């Protein structure tokens, strides 16, 4: 694995993407935030569908509100939030952590990462793929 062709354009420049998170790299509950952990709106958000901004406390940044706005419509994985808002994953983790603390969202992670889902689910995945 040492050939030059192995090196691709996947590596970006060295950056410091944590300005938005005020330098924080670890958010509360970060250990639960898998890339495919689903971020789900809490009642507080769904009960204020039209004006999260007014309802939310003023410490929330525009990026917090963007995340809140997205998950109000449907649960979103951490990875989807990152691509949808064009934010690095680490930043999303920190911001989602804030929203969890504030009671705006929770995280749903039904299958423990160390386990395979049961056979029934795997069969449903196969059926679903075939039906695409």
């Amino acid at each position, binding site marked *: *694995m040492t*050939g030059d*062709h*192995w*090196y*691709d*354009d*996947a*590596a*970006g*420049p*060295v*950056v*410091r*993407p*944590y300005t938005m998170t005020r330098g924080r*790299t670890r958010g509360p509950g970060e250990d639960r935030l*898998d*890339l*495919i*952990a*689903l971020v*789900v*709106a809490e*009642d507080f958000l*769904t*009960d204020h569908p039209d004006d999260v901004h007014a309802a939310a406390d003023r410490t929330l940044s525009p990026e917090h509100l963007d995340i809140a706005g997205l998950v109000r*419509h*449907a*649960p979103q*994985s951490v*990875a*989807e939030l*990152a*691509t949808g808002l*064009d934010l*690095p*994953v*680490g930043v999303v983790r920190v911001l989602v952590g804030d929203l969890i603390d504030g009671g705006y969202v*929770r995280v*749903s992670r*039904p*299958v*423990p*990462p*160390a*386990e*395979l*889902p049961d*056979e029934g*689910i*795997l*069969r*449903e*995945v*196969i059926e*679903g*793929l*075939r039906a*695409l």
Partner: protein
Amino acid sequence: MVFGRTDRRKQNAVTPLALKLLVAGGFGVGKTTLVGAISEIKPLRTEELLTEASRPVDDTSGVEAKRTTTVAMDFGRITLRDDLVLYLFGTPGQNRFWFLWDELAQGALGAVVLADTRRLEDCFAAVDYFERRGIAFTLAVNCFDGAERHPEEAVRDALDLDPGVPVVMCDARERESVKEVLVSVVEHALAGGASRSPATV
């Protein structure tokens, strides 16, 4: 769990089950093409602290306590049902990002290792990685135009694959072909094709 007021939780009534598959293989083997053939594809930016082990050799500054580098991965979502979503992650090809694979591999249903018969050696590392961690994978040979058609057995021998590992010929540009590859991975996982023992690094 939130108690009470559940009647008002309209749009969140169904929280889908999220599963993931990994797509690995050397540079230029067709990972991005494969993910794009079956799902809406977006680049996912993740950023990693550069540890000594992962710091590029040409980086001699070494003064910043906290330096991160962004790594882009292919990321696709396949909605199988309202309550079942499959995410695809194209693993970053560079050696120095192996440590990133560990997070991706956590809880993965299985993996596709894409191979090009003209440079089979490019997928050795990925095969090795999934074998050692007991993660079910299918070896998919991307049949580039002009590439010699290696019979399945020749590929299997060259890679010294376990007899149970599926080897399939595919065209990463074709949705139907990619579907078959993914089905093969999940069938392999279902057949207990890999022992799900804790990762031994």
